């Protein structure tokens, strides 16, 4: 994407954080382009907040360097880093009204009063809170507090914007609205931003690139498309989106087998036990499967059918494996029920093959589909 071509604005070199024996962040290297929105995505406890706090100077790094626009800021205290931070719990100053909250950072920068007022007004307009300038934070709803926090971080025109799970305290509807608002504003201002989240949909929706982390380690860095379609490993495939997971085998002759069905897949080509992963909505139920190269097909038996409104999820036993198939519902569709034999078809490129992970290394659900 375009952002990748831009010169790096924020660089992390071998960033490391240890708490006693815990390596919360391990040798993390990243480079973020000017104006890019990069997501730090991973399960709770994987080191996202720790990484963000090190970038913002709120926590010293154990090792490694942080470079902003070519300048090493690793040793700078937070008040000299010029970064706007949006905290998970907003951290609005309770004893100041909205305008004073916004004005604080400008006062610190010794901006003259009249210009300060103009910029506060502009920032309030940006988040559509002009009418709330005189309110105290506790007199605002969660979404409004969130917008004040965003405006307060942006009004100082920081070189980098850091957001730590900024939407996690909002309810679902508001979350989607706010994430788009954050994205719009970020693009309009062309500001470099790091967005921490454990919500893969949120990351996919608004980030230019996503860094997927697990247990302090960067697992994959890529565009949302790459992360979703070409996951680097089983963990990324399982964490981003819903996916079927089945144990298979690749013979010395290169043939990929799921039970006794021969498949075409993409990814790991080495012989031996493999893990085959297929996203449920990429599998079709069809009486006339497409023939030839690029398509897999197999026959199985329906074991369960669940109607969830817009989706129909059908579990199909296929040899030793059980595959979940998701279909969008439409009126008049005739669908198989439990006990029926069905034919499945899916593309070879949707058949992700990874080396089988040694037991215990990868904490996966027992079988079937990863939770989204």
């Amino acid at each position, binding site marked *: 994407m375009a952002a990748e071509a831009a010169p790096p604005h924020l660089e992390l070199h071998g960033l490391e954080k240890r708490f006693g024996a815990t390596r919360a962040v391990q040798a993390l290297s990243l480079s973020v382009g000017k104006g890019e929105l990069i997501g730090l995505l991973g399960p709770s406890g994987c080191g996202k907040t720790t990484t963000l706090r090190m970038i913002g100077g709120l926590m010293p790094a154990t090792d490694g360097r942080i470079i902003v626009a070519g300048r090493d800021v690793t040793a700078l*205290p937070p008040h000299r880093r010029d970064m706007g931070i949006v905290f998970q719990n907003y951290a609005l100053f*309770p004893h100041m009204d909205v305008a004073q909250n916004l004005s*604080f950072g400008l006062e610190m920068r010794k901006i003259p009063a009249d210009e300060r007022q103009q910029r506060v007004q502009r920032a309030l307009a940006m988040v559509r809170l002009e009418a709330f300038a005189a309110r105290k934070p506790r007199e605002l709803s969660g979404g409004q507090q969130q917008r004040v926090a965003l405006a307060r971080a942006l009004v100082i025109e920081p070189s980098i914007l850091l957001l730590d799970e900024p939407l996690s305290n909002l309810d679902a509807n508001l979350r989607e609205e706010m994430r788009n608002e954050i994205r719009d504003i970020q693009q309009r201002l062309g500001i470099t931003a790091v967005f921490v989240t454990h919500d893969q949909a949120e990351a996919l929706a608004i980030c230019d690139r996503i860094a997927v982390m697990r247990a302090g380690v960067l697992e994959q860095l890529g565009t949302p498309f790459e992360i979703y379609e070409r996951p680097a490993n089983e963990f990324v495939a399982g964490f981003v989106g819903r996916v079927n997971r089945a144990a298979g085998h690749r013979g010395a002759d290169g043939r990929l087998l799921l039970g006794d069905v021969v498949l075409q897949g993409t990814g790991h080509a080495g012989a031996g036990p493999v893990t085959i992963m297929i996203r449920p909505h990429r599998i079709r139920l069809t009486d006339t499967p497409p023939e030839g190269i690029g398509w897999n097909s197999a026959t199985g038996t329906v074991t369960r059918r669940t109607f969830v409104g817009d989706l129909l999820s059908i579990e199909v036993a296929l040899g030793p494996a059980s595959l979940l198939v998701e279909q969008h519902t439409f009126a008049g569709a005739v669908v198989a029920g439990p006990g029926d034999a069905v034919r499945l078809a899916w593309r070879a490129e949707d058949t992700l093959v990874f080396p089988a992970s040694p037991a215990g290394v990868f904490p996966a659900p027992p079988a079937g589909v990863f939770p989204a």
Partner: protein
Amino acid sequence: MGRFGLLPLLVLPAVAVNLLTFLWPMLNLAGLSFREGMPGGGIGTDFTMATWRDLLADEFYLEILLRSVGVSLTITGFALLAGYPLAFFVHRSDARWRNLLVVACISPLLISAVVRTYGWLVILGDRGFAPSLLRGIGIDPPRLVFNMTGVIIGLVEILMPYMILSLLAGFGKLNQTLEEAAASLGAPPLTVFWRIVLPLTLPGILLGCLLTFVLTISSFITPKLLGGGRVLLLATEIYDNAIVTLNWPLAAALSLIALGVFGAAMVVYGRIARAAERAIA
């Protein structure tokens, strides 16, 4: 019964106790101040304004009143200066240690103020630990006991637990993320303190100051012992008149003045606290 139902009944015991043990004696005290005092502690039966007239005409008592207020404010100020960093440290320490530290801070209350005062006499006395320490580092020690200095040192230490407890109670609003937010917006540490920490801890500061002030005004044992009879304050004067010279009407009148000072302190506290509440909450 209205919307509170039987709830008002719950305060009845407290009201009864207060009527019996506070209001009734106070009214007696007020009556006493309008009686004639006889040598040897006797009390006349006739109504007289003599005690109040003498009291209000004598500049000595005005001096004592002003000195008491001044000393109490000074002690309150020192207790705040010494207690605030300590309370802050305790508040910030690990949950594991916090309870232990709180107990350590208030443990002096387990020992009576009289005993602690004697302890200070030993430490501050001419051959005590403090003067020899000063001599050891080459400073000619000033007199530390039987004067105002001793009274201030002793009372600051004795009343600090109350200050620390009040401060800790008021630190609840503090939240480290707020300080981090301020720092990220460009505030150096001292500015963070003035603009964020101090305003948010103001309620605790005000409460601690009120408590320390009132307790200082009313303490008489420590000023008497550490002041060596040379530091004359409102409370020590009340004590002397009530116990030594047995001039009970005068002691009663001075007690009412002390009560007036408490009332004034409450009013000032209320004003400031309300203003602070409006500005902060």
